[in-house]
């Protein structure tokens, strides 16, 4: 076994995984090769130093921060489980059905009120009296009060004048005419 072979197979030998024959061959080579002995010493010593290197320390808030993050994961899971359960959708659907039922209930339950509802009797309309229109200024017999109608029948209540004439008369009294413009 030469130096290259030793270096190639040294990992298995160092970790105790080399077959017995191979290990013996390497050990035999080490007895007569100082450079391979040095290689072994450097590796063994270097690994020892490596294991004594100070370990980095965790920050004081490491656990607190981790707990905080895990809490949020739990929170997410709860929300997800709640959303996935379909409860909100069912609630919305239920409310919608309830409102629809209330809105449509008069048409849905017509039979329920048929026996209890009183029939409404509508009286016959009074015949409309068609009398010749009375001239303006005379009492109209269309009044609801029949006694008054008889009493004032065809009596002149006030002298009738046209509205334009009345304005003229009023204008003349005041010294001008409203119609002569």
């Amino acid at each position, binding site marked *: 076994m030469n130096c290259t072979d030793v*270096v*190639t197979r*040294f*990992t*298995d030998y*160092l*970790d105790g*995984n080399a077959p017995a024959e191979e290990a013996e061959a390497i050990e035999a080579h080490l007895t007569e090769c100082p450079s391979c002995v*040095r*290689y072994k*010493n*450097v*590796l063994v*010593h*270097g*690994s020892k*130093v*490596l*294991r*004594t*290197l100070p*370990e*980095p*320390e*965790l*920050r004081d808030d*490491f*656990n607190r*921060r*981790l707990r905080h*993050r*895990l809490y949020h*994961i739990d929170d997410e899971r709860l929300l997800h489980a709640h959303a996935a359960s379909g409860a909100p959708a069912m609630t919305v659907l239920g409310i919608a059905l309830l409102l629809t039922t209330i809105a449509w209930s008069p048409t849905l339950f017509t039979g329920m009120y048929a026996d209890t509802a009183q029939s409404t009797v509508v009286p016959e309309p009074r015949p409309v009296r068609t009398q010749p229109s009375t001239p303006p200024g005379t009492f109209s017999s269309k009044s609801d009060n029949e006694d008054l109608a008889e009493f004032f029948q065809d009596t002149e209540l006030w002298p009738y004048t046209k509205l334009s004439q009345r304005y003229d008369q009023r204008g003349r009294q005041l010294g001008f005419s409203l119609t002569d413009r």
Partner: protein
Amino acid sequence: MARAKAKKQADLQLVPSEAREHRLRLGEMTDSEVVQASLDGDPRAFGELVQRYDQRLLNFVYRTIGDRERGQDLVQETFVRVYRHLHRFDQTKKFSTWIYTIASNLAKNELRNRSRNPLVLFQTLKKNWDADHRPLEWEDTQYKPDDLFRKRHLRSKVEEAVKQLPEHHRIVFVLREMEGKTYEEIADITGCNLGTVKSRLNRARNNFAHIIAPMID
């Protein structure tokens, strides 16, 4: 690691006795049992998994990407993903392999993103500044200043050597040398076959040896 363990023990003393007993029970369980407890709704079970893996994952991610602050973020993200997808975890497999796979993928993504958007990390600058401006500390009076300097220099060179390894070699190297994973576990974590793992590890060790050789007598 020992200091982190001591801190956890001290924290445990502060909790009420019932909770403490529960935590102790969880502490005696295997990873699979703790995962099952978490899936069954035990709120403390996931905390136990975090306690078991937070420091190890941080060490692994930090050695892989070389940035302490970003490493913490990635470890957090790893736990968040584990929490989110724990129900999908195949319990016939090893939990540690699964969680390392997630962390490894996040670290790879981070390196890939960094190579697309190269920037000088402030932390890198700051770290070098600290190293250059830090007053000399006499950590151990038994050592001579030369020894102290040499030891510190060797450590920094070893750290540098790991950073200099190509990305796919570095992940395999860190998993084997620092995390003590078997070849099979590394193959599962990295998604490579066993031969690729061996070959990458061999090359990584060769490179590593060449970089640090001048510092080792």
